[in-house]
């Protein structure tokens, strides 16, 4: 059953403060967070978070199509290592 619309999206309060501080800063910063349950809001777009997966902080660059998802979705807690083969990485 989905969350009631009248409640709005859930976000931990301290995370909003950190995002605001990052927005105000012009430096190259990463926001370390443990709150995997928080929803990604439009004001987080363009910021980079380090989302804890129980062992390390996985870098998550927030883009527009991630809005509405939870941070934890982008920081897997189980290890899967494939082969690099012909796979490519795009520099953001």
């Amino acid at each position, binding site marked *: 059953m989905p969350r009631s619309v009248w409640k709005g999206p859930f976000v*931990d*309060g*301290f995370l909003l*403060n*950190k995002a605001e*501080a*990052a927005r105000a*800063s012009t*430096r*190259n*910063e*990463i*926001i*370390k967070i*443990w709150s995997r349950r928080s929803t990604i809001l439009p004001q987080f777009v363009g910021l*980079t978070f*380090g989302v804890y997966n129980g062992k*390390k*902080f*996985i*870098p*998550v*660059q*927030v*883009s527009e199509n*991630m809005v509405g998802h939870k941070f934890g*979705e*982008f*920081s*897997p807690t189980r290890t899967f*290592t*494939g*082969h*690099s*083969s*012909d*796979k*490519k*990485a*795009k*520099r*953001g």
Partner: protein
Amino acid sequence: MTGKRILVGEIGRPHGVRGLVKLRSFTADPAAIADYGPLTNEDGTRRYDLILLAEGLARVEGVADRDAAARLTGTRLYAERDRLPPPEEEEYYLADLIGLRAETEAGGSLGIIHAVEDHGAGAFLVLEGPPERLLPFTRAVVPVVDLAGGRVVVVPPEEIVVPPGSEDAA
């Protein structure tokens, strides 16, 4: 990059009695493995020409019975790096990035790139530790990728600090 070979697949168990084998392709598009031929074994001494069939099966040229196919089980298939098409702008093959030295702007060493991962929120570099470092693969953090020089220049991001009292929880 000349002479560099990359692992693109592995021959699995035999299928049937006519020399077909299961093929495990590690390429982004599994069918692309046949485009990178000729494929060789790990030490480059033997060459394999593959004909891809449906459902992950393949026929290896010169292999016509089950016993010969069974002898190939576990063979890792390598392709020449030069056979891969050139990547687009700002795109890099993982095989090219892995193993590069990460350096600061001042020239200090930060370690070797041990893996490049992407879990749907942008690629990031894993520098071997200790301590292991995870760095977003962005222009701000990795301004220079010098494949010929075997290095990347990294500007490690700082951790955001919020003044005490403004946080509700940690």
